[in-house]
C-alpha cells in the first residue's frame, strides 16, 4: 500500500509543477502591456517602469518563473488589483462559501442518486427505472445556470408566500449574522495561521452555527443553500444514478450472487449485503471525478444565486480584468482538484486490492 501511494505521488508531483507553469504562462501571454492590463490605461510611463521593475517583469522569463515559484513557496499569491488585498485573505473570505455549496451539492447528489440508481437496477424496466433514466438524461443535458434560474423562479415566485418558498439569492437573510468562532470563543488576540484557519471555518455558516449553537442562523444558511445545492448537484446526481444502476446490474449477473440466492438468502439481503457493496466501488470513483464539474458548476451557480464564493470572485475578476485574482484562484482550484483526485485514487486502492499492483 505504501508503494502504491508513493507511486501515485511520483506521478502527481510533475503534474503539480506543470499546473504552476501553465498558470504562470497564462498570465504572461495576456496580450498587450502587462502594466496597463493591471493598472489601467491611464498609468504613466514612470509608474509603469516602476511597476515592471518591482514585479521583476524586466527579468528573463526563467528568472521570472523562479521568482514566481519562490513567491508561491512563501504562501504569497499576490495582491488583488481591485480589492487591493492579498489573494490569500480573499480566499479565506470566499472559499468557505464554495466549499459549503460543493459539499452540500455532493451530499444531495449522493443521497438521492445512489438510492435512485439501486431502485432502478432492482426494478429494471419498471416505471421507476424508466422515469429515473429519462430524468437522468435530461439532468445531464441541462446547463447548471438554466436549472438554477428555473429553480429560483419556481421556488421564489410561484411558491411565494407558501411554506415551500425558498430564498433565491445570498447566503443569509438580512439582519441575520453568523458570529465567527474567534468572537464566540473570545480569542480575538489569536494571529497567524491558526487565526486564518478559524476564520476559514467560520465562513462555513452551517457547521459554525451548529458548533456554537446559533441555530436560527444555521437554519437560515441551510435554507439559502438549498436551491444552489440542488442546481449544482443535479448533474452529478444523474451521473451517479446511472453508474449505480449499471454497476448493480452488472454485479447482479455474477456467479456469487447466484450462489447467494441458491443458498436461500432473502432477495433483500442478497441485494443489500452482497451485491450493493461491490456495486458501489465504481460509484466511489465517479463521485471523485465529479469534483471538477462541481467546481466549474460552482462558478455558474454562484453567479446565478449571488453567492460571494470563489466562482463569483472569478466572475468579477474576469469582468474587472483582475488577472492576479484569476491566476491565484485558478491555481488554488487546480491544486485542490489534483489533491482530491489523489485522495480518491488512494481510497480506491484501499477499497479494491487489485488496483494496488
Amino acid at each position, binding site marked *: 500500500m505504501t508503494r502504491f501511494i508513493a507511486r501515485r505521488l511520483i506521478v502527481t508531483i510533475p503534474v503539480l509543477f506543470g499546473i504552476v507553469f501553465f498558470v504562470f504562462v497564462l498570465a504572461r501571454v495576456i*496580450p498587450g502591456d502587462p502594466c496597463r492590463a493591471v493598472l489601467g490605461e491611464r498609468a504613466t510611463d514612470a509608474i509603469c517602469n516602476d511597476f515592471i521593475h518591482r514585479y521583476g517583469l524586466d527579468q528573463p522569463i526563467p528568472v521570472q518563473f523562479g521568482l514566481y515559484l519562490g513567491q508561491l513557496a512563501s504562501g504569497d499569491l499576490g495582491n488583488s488589483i481591485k480589492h487591493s488585498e492579498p489573494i490569500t485573505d480573499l480566499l479565506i473570505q470566499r472559499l468557505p462559501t464554495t466549499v459549503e455549496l460543493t459539499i452540500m451539492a455532493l451530499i444531495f447528489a449522493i443521497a438521492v442518486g445512489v438510492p435512485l440508481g439501486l431502485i432502478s437496477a432492482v426494478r429494471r424496466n419498471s416505471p421507476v427505472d424508466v422515469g429515473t433514466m429519462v430524468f437522468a438524461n435530461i439532468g445531464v443535458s441541462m446547463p447548471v*445556470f438554466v436549472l438554477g434560474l428555473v429553480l429560483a423562479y419556481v421556488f421564489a415566485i410561484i411558491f411565494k408566500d407558501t411554506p415551500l418558498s425558498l430564498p433565491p439569492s445570498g447566503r443569509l437573510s438580512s439582519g441575520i449574522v453568523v458570529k465567527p468562532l474567534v468572537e464566540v470563543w473570545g480569542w480575538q488576540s489569536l494571529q497567524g495561521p491558526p487565526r486564518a484557519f478559524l476564520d476559514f471555518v467560520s465562513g462555513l455558516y452551517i457547521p459554525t452555527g451548529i458548533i456554537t449553537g446559533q441555530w436560527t442562523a444555521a437554519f437560515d444558511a441551510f435554507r439559502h443553500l438549498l436551491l444552489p445545492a440542488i442546481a449544482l448537484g443535479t448533474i452529478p446526481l444523474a451521473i451517479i444514478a446511472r453508474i449505480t444502476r449499471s454497476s448493480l446490474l452488472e454485479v447482479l449477473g455474477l456467479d456469487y450472487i447466484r450462489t447467494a440466492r441458491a443458498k436461500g438468502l432473502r432477495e433483500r439481503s442478497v441485494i443489500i449485503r452482497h451485491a450493493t457493496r461491490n456495486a458501489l466501488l465504481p460509484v466511489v470513483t465517479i463521485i471523485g471525478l465529479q469534483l471538477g464539474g462541481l467546481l466549474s458548476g460552482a462558478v455558474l451557480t454562484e453567479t446565478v444565486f449571488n453567492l460571494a464564493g470563489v466562482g463569483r470572485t472569478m466572475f468579477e475578476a474576469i469582468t474587472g480584468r483582475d488577472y492576479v485574482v484569476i491566476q491565484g484562484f485558478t491555481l488554488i482550484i*487546480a491544486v485542490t482538484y489534483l489533491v482530491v483526485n489523489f485522495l480518491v485514487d488512494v481510497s480506491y486502492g484501499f477499497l479494491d486490492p487489485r488496483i494496488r499492483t
Partner: protein
Amino acid sequence: MAATTVSPPPLGAETLSRGRPASLWRDTIRNVLRQRSAVVGLFLLTILVGAAIFAPILAPYAPDQDLRRVPGLENVEKRADPCIHALGCPAATPQAIFGTDGNFRDVFSRVLYGGRVSIAIGLAAIGIAIVLGTIIGAIAGYAGGWVDNILMRLMDVILAFPSLLLAIAIVTAVGQSLTNALIAIGTVSIPIYARIVRSSVLSAKENDYVTASRALGESPVGILVRRIMPNSLTPLIVQGTLGIGGAVLEIAALAFVGVTGSPDQAEWGSMIGFERNQLFTAPHIILAPGIAITLTVLGFNLLGDGLRDALDPRLNR
C-alpha cells in the same frame, strides 16, 4: 472493428474484401437504429440542426432586428409575453411565438439563429480536439518511452483543471471572443481523445497483423494510419458525439459568464446571461434558449449513448 482484425492484409485480399465495407456499414446502421436512445437523439438533432440550417427561411425576422422598425409592428412591447394568433392571442398584438426581448427583438428568431452558433462551435471545437488528440495519442502510444511520458503528463496537466475554469482562463488570457472560446473549448477537450487513441494504439500495436505489415515493409506511418488507427474509430465516434453535447454546454456557459465578446450576438448562453435579471418579470426570454440548449445537448447525449451501445460489442448483454 471485426473486419479490420480478421481481414488479412496481404495481396489479393483487397479484391475479396471489397464487398465487405458496404455490408459492415449497413450492419452498423441497422444496429444503431435498433437503439431507442439513438433514434430519439437522431430525431431531436434532425429537427434542431434543420431549424438552425433553415433559420433564414423559418425565422420571421432577422436575429438583430428591432421590431419597432418593422412596418405594422410599431406598437410592439419590450419583453412582451409570447403571443400566437392561432392560440387566441388578440390580433391587435404582434405575433411573437417566444415573445420579445429587452431590445424589442423576436426571441424565436434569435433562438433559431442561436442554434447555428452553438452547433457549429460544438462541432468545430470537438473537431479540433479530435484531430489534435488523435495526433498526440497516436504518437504517444506508438513511440512509447519518454515521448509517451512527456505527452501524457502534459495531458494530465490539462485534465487537472476543471474544464470550464481552464476555458475561462484561456479566453481571458488570449482575448474575449467567440473564436477564442471555440479554441479554448477545443483545447481543454484534447486529453480525452488523446487518451482514447493512445490506449487503442497500445492494445493494437502488438497484434500479429501489425507485425505482419511491418514484416512486409510497410512504413510506420502507414501501419499507424491503415492498420492501427481504425481500431480507435469506434470509441472516437462515440466520445466525439457525447463531446459535442458537452461543448455546446460549455460554449453556453462561457457566453453566459460573458467572455465571448459582444452580448448582442444571437447565442443561447449570452441571451440568457444578458436577460438574467429579468427572470422574475419575463421568464420566457430565459426559458426559450434554455430549453433549446437542453434539447440539443440531450440529442447529442442520447445519440452518443445509442452509438456506444450499438458499436461496442462488449456491452451486448
